[in-house]
C-alpha cells in the first residue's frame, strides 16, 4: 500500500517537474511546481515528517508560489522565449550534462558511502546515540522538532528571523520606485 502510494506520487512529482521545465508558459510552470511541491509534501508524510509536510504546504504552496504567480502577473511575460535562440547549441548541451549529473548522483547514492542501508554507514552502528531515540519522542513528531528548534538550534532559529528581516528591508529598497 505504502509502496503504491510512493510510486504514484513519485511519478506525479517527476511528471510535474518535467512539465515545469518543458512548458513555455511560466504560469503553467508555476502550477506544475505547485503540484510538485504538493507531491513532496505527501512524501514527507510517508516519511513520518508531518510537521514538515504541512510547513511545506503553508510556506511553499501558500506563500512562495503566490509570490511567483504575483510576479508573473505583474510582468505578464510570455513573449520572452519565442524569438530565435542564439545560444541554442549551448543550451541543448545541458540535456546530456543533466543526464551525466543524474548518473553521478545515482552512483554516489548507491555507493557504500551514503547509500545501501543504515548498517553500512561508517561510524553508525545500530544502538549508537543517533539511533537511540526514545520511542516516546517520535522523530517526525512535531514535539521533537519543536524541542530541537527552540533548544539545540535556538541560535540558528533567531538568526533566521534576522535573515527574514534583512530580506524584507532588501526587497523594500529594491522594489521602491525612485522619487523623481
Amino acid at each position, binding site marked *: 500500500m505504502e*509502496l503504491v502510494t*510512493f510510486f504514484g506520487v513519485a511519478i506525479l*512529482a*517527476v511528471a510535474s*517537474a518535467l512539465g*515545469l*521545465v518543458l512548458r513555455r508558459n*511560466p504560469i503553467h*510552470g*508555476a502550477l506544475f*511546481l505547485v503540484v*510538485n*511541491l504538493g507531491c*513532496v509534501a505527501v*512524501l*514527507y508524510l*510517508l*516519511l513520518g*515528517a508531518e*510537521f*514538515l509536510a504541512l510547513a*511545506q504546504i503553508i*510556506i*511553499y504552496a501558500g*506563500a*512562495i508560489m503566490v*509570490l*511567483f504567480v504575483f*510576479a*508573473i502577473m505583474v*510582468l505578464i511575460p510570455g513573449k*520572452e522565449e519565442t524569438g530565435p535562440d542564439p*545560444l541554442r547549441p549551448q543550451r*541543448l548541451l*545541458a*540535456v546530456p550534462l*543533466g*543526464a551525466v*549529473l543524474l548518473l553521478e*548522483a*545515482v552512483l554516489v*547514492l548507491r555507493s557504500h558511502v*551514503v*547509500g545501501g542501508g*543504515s548498517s553500512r554507514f561508517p561510524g553508525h552502528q545500530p544502538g549508537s546515540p543517533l539511533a537511540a*531515540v526514545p520511542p516516546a519522542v517520535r*522523530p*517526525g513528531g512535531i514535539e*521533537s*522538532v519543536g524541542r*530541537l*528548534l527552540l533548544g*539545540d*538550534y535556538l541560535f540558528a532559529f533567531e538568526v*533566521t528571523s534576522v535573515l*527574514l528581516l534583512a*530580506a524584507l528591508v*532588501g526587497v523594500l529598497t*529594491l*522594489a521602491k520606485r525612485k522619487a523623481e
Partner: protein
Amino acid sequence: MVPETYYTMLSAILFSIGVVGVLVRRNPLVIFMSIELMLNAANLALVAFGARFGAADAQVLVFFVMTVAAAEVAVGLAIIVAIFRLRRRLSVDDLSLMRW
C-alpha cells in the same frame, strides 16, 4: 515500508531535472522555479536520511532551508521585477554584463 534509497533516487531525478531547467530555459522566472525544484529535491533527500537514523535534526535543517528559500524568493523576485522595469524585457541572455 519504502526503502530510503527510493526517496534519494527520486530526489536525484528531481534535482537533475531542476539543473536542466536552469540551463535550458531563458526566462529568469522559470529558472528561479527550477532552483526551487532543486532545493526541494535536496530537502527530500535530507528528510529521507533523517528518517533512516530516526533523528529529527534533518527536519529542523529542512525547516531552515525553507525559511532561507522564502527570503531568497522575495529578494530574487524583487530583483527580477527591478530588471524588468529597467529593460522592458525578460531574458537571462540580456544580463551578461553584471551591471545595470
